[in-house]
């Protein structure tokens, strides 16, 4: 396979925290809003007010349950292009429209040269590509390339829309090619993982697993139950406090 790793080693991507993602879709909708007027505009919606509204979304949230019974877990799983280091979608593109930027590793599609053959979407094991059947071209997460470098915006706003809007701080953006970056350290600290590494595409985005839950007795340092000091069955249990005099 072709080597795609940019010479700079820079690899921009997202770190998604499954410990705090509540599945609110804020990221998905703000992404839609930014990108439908952005570099890949529009993100069309077919039948928007009809029986089968179907639009182009670069970021989708999947919600499912894992496990059975009361200990089951409800998982909210946001998913967008993972900007793989070895992207098969780029490899299979017959026109070179799908490409990985040398500057920062963002995987993009050049709409001018995309012929809409969908080979890339067949190749992508993550289902991250979105076909615009109106324009007949493939579209996908651009990592808000027209926002993150945008010199007309304040520095603090130069992050992908999904990151700046996330109410739960569950999305982080940065250079995952740099082991000293804040996102790389976060991944190291929290045991962040990549999706389906066995496929060998080396996805850039990372997911942070839920922190260990403090559900069991003793987790907070508290005893399993309070020590009983008053017998509720006593004749006058309230007498416990009869001599407790405090001043106002």
């Amino acid at each position, binding site marked *: 396979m072709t080597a795609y790793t940019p010479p700079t080693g820079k690899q921009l991507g997202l770190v998604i925290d499954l410990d705090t993602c509540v599945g609110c879709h804020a990221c998905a909708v703000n992404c839609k809003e930014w990108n439908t*007027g952005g570099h890949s505009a529009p993100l069309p919606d077919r039948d928007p007010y009809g029986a089968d509204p179907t639009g182009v979304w670069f970021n989708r949230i999947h919600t499912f349950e894992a496990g059975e019974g009361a200990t089951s877990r409800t998982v909210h799983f946001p998913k967008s292009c993972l900007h793989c280091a070895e992207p098969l979608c780029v490899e299979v593109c017959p026109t070179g429209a799908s490409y990985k930027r040398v500057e920062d590793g963002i995987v993009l599609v050049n709409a001018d040269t995309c012929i809409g053959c969908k080979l890339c979407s067949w190749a992508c094991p993550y289902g991250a590509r979105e076909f615009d059947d109106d324009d007949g071209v493939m579209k996908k997460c651009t990592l808000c390339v027209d926002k993150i470098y945008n010199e007309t915006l304040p520095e603090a706003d130069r992050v992908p829309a999904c990151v700046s809007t996330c109410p739960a701080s569950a999305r982080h953006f940065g250079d995952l090619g740099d082991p000293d970056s804040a996102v790389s350290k976060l991944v190291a600290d929290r045991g962040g993982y990549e999706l389906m590494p066995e496929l060998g595409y080396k996805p850039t985005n990372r997911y942070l697993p839920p922190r260990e839950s403090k559900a069991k007795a003793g987790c907070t340092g508290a005893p399993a139950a*309070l020590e009983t000091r008053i017998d509720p069955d006593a004749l006058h249990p309230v007498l416990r406090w009869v001599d407790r005099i405090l001043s106002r």
Partner: protein
Amino acid sequence: MDGGERIDLSRPIGDTVKATTCYMCACRCGIKVHLHQGRIRYIEGNKDHPVNKGVLCAKGSAGIMNHYSPARLRKPLKRAGERGSGAFVEIEWEEALTTLAARLAHIRATDPKKLAFFTGRDQSQSLTGWWANQFGTPNFAAHGGFCSVNMAAAGLYTIGGSFWEFGEPDWEHAEYFLMFGVAEDHDSNPIKAGIAKLKARGAKFVSVNPVKTGYQAVADEWIGIAPGTDGLFVMALIHELLKADRIDLDFLVKYTNAPWLVRRDDGLFVRDAAGNPLCWDTRTGNTASALSPDVAPKLVGETTLLDGTRAVPVFELMAARYLSPEYAAEKVADACGVPAATIKRIAAELAHAAFDKQIVLDQPWTDWAGRRHAQTIGRPVAMHAMRGISAHSNGFQTCRAIHILQILLGAIDTPGSWRYKSPFPRPCPPGPKPTGKPEQVAPDKPMGGMPLGFTLGPEDLLLDRDGKPMRIDKAYSWEAPIAAHGLMHMVIANAWAGDPYEIDTLFMYMANMAWNSSMNTSGTMRMLTDKKPDGTYKIPFVVYSDAFASEMVAYADLVLPDTTYLERWDCISLLDRPIGSMEGPGDAIRQPVVEPDRDVRPFQTVLIDLGARLKLPGFTNPDGTPKFPGGYADYIVNHERKPGVGPLAGFRGRDGSKSGVGEPNPKQLERYIENGAFWRHHLEPEQMHYKHANKGYLEAAVKLGLIDKPDQIVMQIYSEPLQKFRNAARGLGAVPCPPEHRARIEHACDPLPFWYPPFEGEMVDTNEFPLHAITQRPMPMYHSWGSQNAWLRQILNDNRLYVNRATAEKQGLADGDWVWIVSHHGRVKGRIKTMEGVNPHTVWTWNAIGKRKGAWNLAEDAHEATRGFLLNHAIAELLPEKGGLGHRYSNSDPVTGQAAWFDLRVRLEKCDPVEAGETAPLHPALQAPPNLPPRPEISRFGAEFKR
């Protein structure tokens, strides 16, 4: 590789950016709206804004699609067919307003209460309520009665603040966070941000909710409680804390009425001649004012007063109640569906967090008595509760119980606990009293006060001379004595029945009462169209204002089209529901970001115009000319509720230099715009905690006009107003409770929180209806506004009934089966989905996805109309008749009148195969209002910005 592509990396978002306030739900986040050539390009959160600090939820980001919705109304409409058909003709505004003003003038000159004016999800209640007052009708309320009045009233009568609106968890310092009954209820972005902060710090988050979605999914511990039993759970926690003597006695003595003496005979407080409550002071061996700082009051032990009356401190009554074996963990475990060991462990964890993890801040402060404290002590246990508590007929007392739990832990307005959002705390309860007594309602006269307020006892009820309700919704009657937000959900039913009287005009704003905002939806539609024998409608005239072609539009005789939230002025006022925080009070505005492209007007401006046409004193100059010719913006700047106090507290005074109180500033709105469309006052660090007893805060609050007096606000564990209602039910007092209401009032108006089973489950056979049925609000939607949105409806446009997998299997049901959801009142057809994370005795669905065919300019085969279902059809607005009395109470909390949506009990019946595939009841398609734009087959929104 560059793919040969040239990317414009620094294309400006647009040519203009305007700051305003979101209205995609009720949270009032700050937004920045980017425009390109007059079109809305992008909406993002405002980083400087105190509510959302830059983030924005799915609803807020989808505001563009609400704004450009093809369901927007375009012009005033006059009914042109049978009511409910949707047949209208367009008319000019002048005709609409002339017609309406003439009708209202007649009502006002004859019997003003024949106007019922109810304003839904209105964020301008300080204007709309004041308009009702000026008109002279007591029949005003917004949607609080079917939303969260149980939370508001319980909080305001107990701690002088409340969850969400008037308080918030201290996310920065809490070690333990206990949340009850919150799906996506308010406030949405701050809770998400707060949970993330808590979890990053390693604090524990426990969520009590029958359904494990949303916030529950990320909680450390999920308590899948049986609906309506939260009060039992909380009182069992209290039982455990008392039994272990792990309570904050110092807090109780200093800040609550725990030491106040209660008379054994009538249950009222022992008071001195000046009205001060008394305690037994151990220093003097005598009674003394319980408000004095110089007492050391007894907490336990009976006192015999000089007149022979025996009295006992509140603390003793409270401790005796909750030490009772009926609140033991083992006793409540089965009913709650929570193991006793779990309850005991959580009690231990609460005590551990509050006392063993006590926070000590080196922050000096001065208490109400002028005593300096070198440090600020924190009890880092925070709580929050909303709909799952509120929407039950025992919600008021349950919410009060949660506040008692907070109080016992000393966890109110301390570092790490729940904290007041200034302008709160206010006295428990705050003033004023409601207006609308017989002598206050007279032709052609203002009432002299706001319709809604806080009753302190039977003498404050709004009853006619026969003791019957003065208000059409029966608020502040024996059926709902502390109905602080009214009962909007009962207005149509009562007006139809002529109970307590017939009205002439029903005037509503922003509430979809012919669909998702009513109980008994099909019945409500029938009531709105029902006729008398003479062929006239039972509700003679219906006026409705909305921005969209909602279901309710079809049931109006006159439709006043409103603007969207991006086309108007608004104020988020301290006189109403401000955006204060624990760090200080705040308020905000909306400004028109774009001009309307339709013949629509902002409702508030229309109301002010109507006020002038009717010559209402507050809206008219002495010479008869309109007082606010510039509409709502003019009113926002120039109206004064009392001298120097107006809708906005910021930038007052001629030069904009005053905060809180000051003359109107003609440039006030400009100053708000410069400041990002909001104003906030930063409290000094030593004013930020113990605000209820913090001299610095209380004095500052008086100066800002937030409260009248700098007196300590004493939390009310034992509620004397409730006892006064109870006494009336026992035949005591000057305002007797009629015999038919006595048992209910005596039971419900217990001055100490207690638990009773929700009414519906007690009145129907639970073998026949074994399941609880509730709704949850989906994160990306706010009732019917969200489910019409082109983007949001792609996330969710078909709601299933979620059933615990084991429960479904027992009944032979599988994923995708169509079932009848049958209640004592009716049945609804929907499709089930099984899941693990739901209480086994509970089924649930998403709120307000189902829509009426033809409404909202959606296609008739939209899934919202064909598969989406509305549980409301199965919920009765009245409780079953009991005891052969013939009287049916509303399906509401007996104290506050809060709609008891979540009391619903159902059974599931698998549909015949021939019945599957479509929801029921399925009402005929509504005709769309004239000249709505065609629905596009494809939306290419955004293409125009690529240039």
